[in-house]
């Protein structure tokens, strides 16, 4: 028997399981060796639901979150009508009394703003791409584009929180934490859920560590922030006066003394502590290997663009995401700030796209050439959309757009999704005409692709069974290949 499992049996079953970095799914294997682990009836609902619930299409997720809300109308959702009616007031019949943010609520007019950019169409799928994202357009045959996403929140914090945790407020577990808890890590030296942060040149909105919080799950499932560069994980590096051999000697001594105290005291937590120090030592080896981008071949550097060698850029994070995912990290969550174009949107958008377009596409191509795209789900999108009418002064070439939760576009690739276009908005890009996808539906679908039934995957906390999708959500079957 695996010593970790054996040690675990010393402890309470439930406590042990909730602490396990393998996740519950990882234990399914263990249970073959230790059937008694699952003997207890009704211990927890999870015992009746060994994960995954069915064969997964995707083993790993890379979520490229575009924080601040990119304008769907200037990137994917081409609306010639807006160009035709540029400057005219949004018809009341279209707006239909929907609420506005405090930023435009006092505007007396809502002049429509047609996109300044030219669009091209992929003839196979019908998808449109603006000229600002040529690289993404070049991989359009691989993309599943959902133009009919909608959310309930109208401000950044609640909308982001909703996307990441399934609730607008509250300290709930992040999507990555749920996946870590359910499926665990494929690599015992790396966490199951990692987070990468970067900033663009546009108007930024900040991110919050609660977005990758474990909520009520054990804190081993919280997202671990990674970066390329000197200190890829906090506290990872030895101080300059301690090298690896010297550290080894200290760890041996610590283990020896802890072992002695275990003999005296008998607390299994001491054994866990010894193991965690060992794991820390292995992480110190493995993490820099994974996060070092120096040894990537010239062709890869070219593919992601020269920025990928600058730690903390979106390009570097995309490349790092590929490496982490390839090493078995279950859920890699990127956040890229700067999409909040309340004014001067076209110019800010160009800047954002310069940072984001090439590396996003490179990631898909790179995964594909490694044969990993089929089992890796890549998601690209923000927390809501932007309005079809202008915020602030409108000129021929310049405009701003406010928050618009009623429709926006995200795309996915790989991991069992069907390339194509799903959903349609009206000619004004204001309302959804067909096939709406709610945030809960989106979550349900991602879970489904990972082999998880979102209705069954619950965690009981303070008397209530919680799940990522709260009490609703339907899998969008049509986009699954």
């Amino acid at each position, binding site marked *: 028997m695996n010593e970790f499992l054996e040690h675990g049996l*010393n402890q*309470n079953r439930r406590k042990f399981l909730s*602490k396990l970095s393998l996740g519950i799914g990882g234990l399914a294997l263990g249970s073959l060796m230790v059937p008694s682990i699952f003997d207890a009836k009704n211990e927890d609902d999870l015992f009746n639901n060994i994960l995954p619930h069915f064969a997964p299409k995707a083993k790993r997720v890379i979520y490229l979150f575009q924080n601040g809300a990119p304008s769907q109308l200037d990137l994917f959702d081409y609306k010639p009508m807006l160009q035709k009616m540029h400057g005219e007031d949004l018809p009341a019949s279209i707006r239909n009394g929907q609420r506005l943010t405090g930023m435009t609520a006092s505007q007396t007019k809502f002049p429509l703003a047609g996109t300044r950019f030219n669009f091209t169409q992929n003839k196979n799928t019908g998808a449109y791409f603006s000229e600002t994202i040529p690289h993404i357009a070049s991989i359009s045959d691989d993309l599943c584009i959902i133009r009919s996403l909608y959310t309930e929140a109208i401000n950044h914090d609640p909308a982001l929180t909703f996307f990441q945790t399934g609730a607008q407020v509250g300290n709930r577990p992040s999507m990555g934490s749920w996946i870590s808890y359910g499926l665990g890590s494929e690599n015992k030296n790396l966490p199951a859920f990692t987070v990468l942060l970067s900033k663009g040149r546009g108007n930024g909105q*900040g991110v919050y560590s609660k977005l990758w919080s474990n909520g009520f799950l054990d804190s081993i499932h919280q997202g671990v922030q990674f970066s390329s560069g000197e200190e890829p994980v*906090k*506290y990872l590096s030895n101080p300059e006066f301690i090298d690896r051999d010297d550290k080894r000697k200290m760890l041996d001594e*610590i283990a020896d003394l802890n072992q002695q105290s275990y003999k005296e*005291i008998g607390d299994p937590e001491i054994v866990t502590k010894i193991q965690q120090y060992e794991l820390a030592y292995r992480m110190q080896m493995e993490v820099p290997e994974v996060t070092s981008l120096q040894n990537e071949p010239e062709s890869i550097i070219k593919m992601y663009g020269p920025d990928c060698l600058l730690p903390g850029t979106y390009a570097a994070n995309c490349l790092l995401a590929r490496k982490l995912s390839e090493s078995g990290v279950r859920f890699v969550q990127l956040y890229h700030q700067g999409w909040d174009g309340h004014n001067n949107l076209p110019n800010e958008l160009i800047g954002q796209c310069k940072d984001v377009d090439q590396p996003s596409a490179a990631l898909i191509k790179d995964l594909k050439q490694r044969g990993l795209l089929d089992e890796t789900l890549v998601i690209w999108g923000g927390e809501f959309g932007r309005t079809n009418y202008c915020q602030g002064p409108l000129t021929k070439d310049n405009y701003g757009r406010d928050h618009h939760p009623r429709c926006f576009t995200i795309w996915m690739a790989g991991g069992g999704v069907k390339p194509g276009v799903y959903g349609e908005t009206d000619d004004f890009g204001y309302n959804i005409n067909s096939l709406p996808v709610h945030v809960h539906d989106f979550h349900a679908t991602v879970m489904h692709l990972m082999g998880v039934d979102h209705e069954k995957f619950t965690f009981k906390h303070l008397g*209530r069974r919680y799940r990522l999708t709260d009490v609703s959500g339907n899998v969008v079957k049509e986009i699954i290949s």
Partner: protein
Amino acid sequence: MRLIQNKKTSVVLLILIALITLSIYYFATENRKLEKPVSYNKDIRPLLSDRCFTCHGPDINKMKAGLRLDMPTSAFAELPKNKGHYAIVPGSPEKSELIKRIESTDPNIVMPQPESHLSKLTVAEIKIFKRWIKEGAKYEKHWAFVSPQKSSLPKIDNGKWVKNEIDYFIAEKMEEKGLSPNEQAKKENLIKRVYIDLNGLPPTYEELQYWTKNNNENWYTQLIDQVMKKPAYGEKMSLLWLDLARYSDSYGYQDDNIRTQWPWRDWVINAFNRNIHYDEFLRQQIAGDLMPNSNKETILATAFFRNHKYTEEGGVIEEEYRVTNNIDKTRTYGKAILGVTIECAQCHDHKYDPFSAKDYYQLYAFFNISKEKGYEGDVSVSTPAKTPKLYINMEDRKNILAYLNTKDTSRIEVSVMGDTNRPTYILSRGRYDAPDKEVKPAALASIMYFDTLKYPRNRLGLANWTVNKKNPLTARVFVNFIWQDIFGKGLVKTSSDFGLQGELPSHPELLDWLAVDFMDHQWDIKYLVKKLITSATYTQSSNINKDHLQKDPENNYYARSPRIRLKAELIRDWILSTSGLLNKNIGGPSVKPYQPKGVWESTTSGRGQLANYKQDHGEDLYRRGMYTFIKLTAPPPSMMLFDASNRDQCEAKRSNTNTPLQALAMLNDPTVLEASRVLAQKLSGENLSLDEKIQKAFELILIRKPTSSEKSKITTYFKNQEIYLNANKLLVQKTLAVGEYKNGQKSKNELEAAALMKTCMLLYNLEETITKS
């Protein structure tokens, strides 16, 4: 012969009679054990609540088939959708539709319905249901909603073990389980425990020597009294309350600018140190502005409710956030003070607890009448507090608020409570823009009647209702929090949910006894804490044997004292204090010690005063963990790694993990490295032999003497380090250069100091160091 025969017969007869008697007695006792009547609260309600109430519980909007199983009137009535049938027929399980349904294997008939994803009842659970119905299907009011009563102390076998009333209740259950308590803990362990639980700091070397040598028979109570008197007591006790009150130093949300709530934090520390009794402690925090003898200090107490996040995002809808903030206050009041989660009733009648949406909004109304605005402008016009504000000037700080500790002489402003007139409506589906019927402020009637002749319909009325001794929850919940703080988990493990879905208490009579005793002693917090730590339950050893692991791995029966890793803040305190670096100042604005690069910078929007982390220097680097600046969107990583609350919301219980990232922090955090260096240099300069230096380092850090084997191992490590460093002299300077702290003079023996530094680092990294054992 006959006689003998007779004798034989009579012997046989006697034996037979004895056997029969014995077996009757045996079966009778067995039966008695088996036939202990099924308890609705203990056995049935948890099952009903877990599997049935979703559709057949208090939420009438979700009720199916017109059946409610939480009330006997409905459960015993003819089924509206199934005439001639009854869900429950008391005394007749075979006639009860409920039994048919839970036993059925037909997916169209079985309950819970398969699509609910609620698991089917097990054979044993069905049996319990049948017996309960057979015994008359007696319903009981939820235990936690009935006022606690002091029951008489249980009779136990091991009378010698007990030290106070607590132990009777603990011993009773332990004996039932066939467990026996551990022997008394070693003196040095007790000293460490008491210092941790009452001060969150280690004893000084001198204190340790003093108490170790003190052989007075009352040494232990003397120790408690002494340690309880120290001002660090208030700091330690506040940790729990700061989590519940979601205290932070920033507003949260996207720009997350700085705010000034720390004077409230200092009020809490001071209140614990003055030992303000719990009823008054609550009354001031709930309604300090409305009390007849209200003053700036009592108004400051109400900042408790204003610690929630506050948006400064441009373009938000003011009313949406005013509502959000009041929902937060309502939740905090519910979880932290009453131990109930009522937020479900924000959108619909509660599914498990007897709280309707109307009950919820009546409670919410107490906070909704606040003068507060939902939005006062974006970060460019940010202020340290939001309306209503308390202004504290120099005059106040010389008098009533003298304990506020800041060098800044300008006026301080703090967000506090203050009422206006504002109607409250039930918000349908919890939406701020969907007001329905108007409601008036009132407390939760299913817990205790809110008598409007006695209680005004404002927070003062709520406060007095809360601390009325008949309130079934207030005392129980607090007593349970203190138990949790000291024993690692509550008697009710779900310490912020005493409702129907919460866990049942492991020792219900003990919980009630403690709650009543606490109120009988005028809600005296120090009395309560002392009661707990003078029990035999607390003072026994924490060693774990096979019997423990087999019979009680989770230590629900306390046959051993718990071993608990220190809270995040206390790990820092331990390291700073043992090394002599700790700055013991109490209170004041929070500080910014060492922190890994980029934590604030990588998440910030770039706006506001907290975009960049400006680390402090000098004395401010060495404050206690509780004074580390909490920026909500990027809380201090060293705290988060060790399971501290992120303070986003009221949090009643921290998890307790053991992870590799913690190991990395202990090995590489400059705080640990610097403390090791400073302690090593100090020891190296003392007029002691090497042996004594190592011994002293060990005692300072682990609060006990090393065993001879430990000492020889550590000495060997030291000597090897000395050889290694001697061969790599460049490392000596580097080792002694870690951290900003400047020693007065240069170490005389730098090689020794450097090797000692590594030795101290080793000691800080032992499991026992940061564990209450």
